[in-house]
């Protein structure tokens, strides 16, 4: 089973369709599938729905697809870094569904794990709960608490950034660049992954693998810009 593709464009060949739902890994600009996003821009696919915690900045991340008006809707928890996003949203060009960050992460994991719905107290009593099913559960302390139901997300495509992959698609992430990537991979009917290095099978200790290759269908290796959004430093002490 050959999972390795020469580049982002070939790895997405045949997978992109107008109106599709794409789950993307990354938090801010950290651990985003920048090469695959670039290839989606080149492909020009329209009306995309993205489940992604953030929407990038104007000229990096999902932001590059906003500039080309390829995005119809975002399912996100925070989009504050993106002026073009705001312009399109306020003018009605772009739909936005806010999900609390933990709810979004759990919805992706659930969708990828055969769980169509789960209950959480996150958002109870807020606008997030509007129109959602409410249910009371008795806790282990005997007290009753109200929860809302959230649904699993199953995406047509997952685009993911990992640090290293072996040839069978086993993945290792690096530091906080892991973030949404494993759960985005889980919830995709097809999952395409970009990595900094593809290593031979057997290179990884099987106990160090963060996401087994069963979740990964296509892999590319490439050079990553890995832009820093907020460069904060301290004085040498």
């Amino acid at each position: 089973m050959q999972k390795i593709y020469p580049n982002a464009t070939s790895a997405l060949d045949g997978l992109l369709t107008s109106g599709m739902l794409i789950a993307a890994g990354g938090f801010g600009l950290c651990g985003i599938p920048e090469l695959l996003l670039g290839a989606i821009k080149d492909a020009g696919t329209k009306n995309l729905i993205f489940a992604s915690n953030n929407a990038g900045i104007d000229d990096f991340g999902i932001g590059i697809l906003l500039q080309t008006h390829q995005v119809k809707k975002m399912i996100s928890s925070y989009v504050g870094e993106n002026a073009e996003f705001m312009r399109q949203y306020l003018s009605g060009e772009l739909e936005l569904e806010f999900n609390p960050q933990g709810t979004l992460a759990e919805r992706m994991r659930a969708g990828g794990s055969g769980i169509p719905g789960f209950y959480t107290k996150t958002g109870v009593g807020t606008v997030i709960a509007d129109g959602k099913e409410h249910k009371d559960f008795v806790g282990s302390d005997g007290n009753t608490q109200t929860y809302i139901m959230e649904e699993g997300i199953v995406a047509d495509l997952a685009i993911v950034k990992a640090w290293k992959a072996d040839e069978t698609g086993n993945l290792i992430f690096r530091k906080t660049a892991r973030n949404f990537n494993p759960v985005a991979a889980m919830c995709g009917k097809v999952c395409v992954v970009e990595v900094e290095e593809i290593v031979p099978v057997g290179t990884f200790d099987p106990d160090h693998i963060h996401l087994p290759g069963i979740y990964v269908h296509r892999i590319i290796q490439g050079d990553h810009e890995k832009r820093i959004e907020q460069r904060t430093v301290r004085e040498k002490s």
Partner: protein
Amino acid sequence: MAWDRNQMAKRAATELKDGWYVNLGIGIPTLVANYVGDKDITLQSENGMLGMGPFPIEGDEDPDLINAGKQTITELNRTAYFDSATSFGMIRGGKIACAVLGAMEVNEKGDLANWMIPGKLVKGMGGAMDLVAGVGRVIALMDHTNKHGDSKLLRQCTLPLTGKAVVDRIITNLGVLDVVVGGLKIVECADGVTEDELHAATEAKIV
């Protein structure tokens, strides 16, 4: 007279107990880390890290290592990384002992609003709704009044809520108040602030 930002952060740091896992929000709460002293406090960053270290020395920034405010940070020898679902699993599951969060408004029932001002730019709640719903103890660290001098400790919140009945304690530039049955209870006045001044600056019912 009142506390400045650093004094507020210092006061908030006294809330944290040895051995606690803590989540600090963006803004003044971030400063709390400077005042934990010798206490064994482990900071969680909800983008997938326990054991958050200080900002890096210039030149050591790592794009794969940021906090929930998207700032470059460092790791400690106790650090562990994990994915976002696990991160919020521990938040919702009550494993984080305490969150110190900024607030735009808090009401006398402990409702908190800190994510959205209608008509203004909509940025999103990020992890705030999960934190206030799941964390064991929620401390709102905030200015007591807005720039017009109006109280931000209200009878009813006017802004969309981040969570309902979620705040345990409020620390402001004027003092410390607990959310109790029937309203807010003064725990402590800031240096040079009288109880009368605290009453006068507070719209919420003080019991």
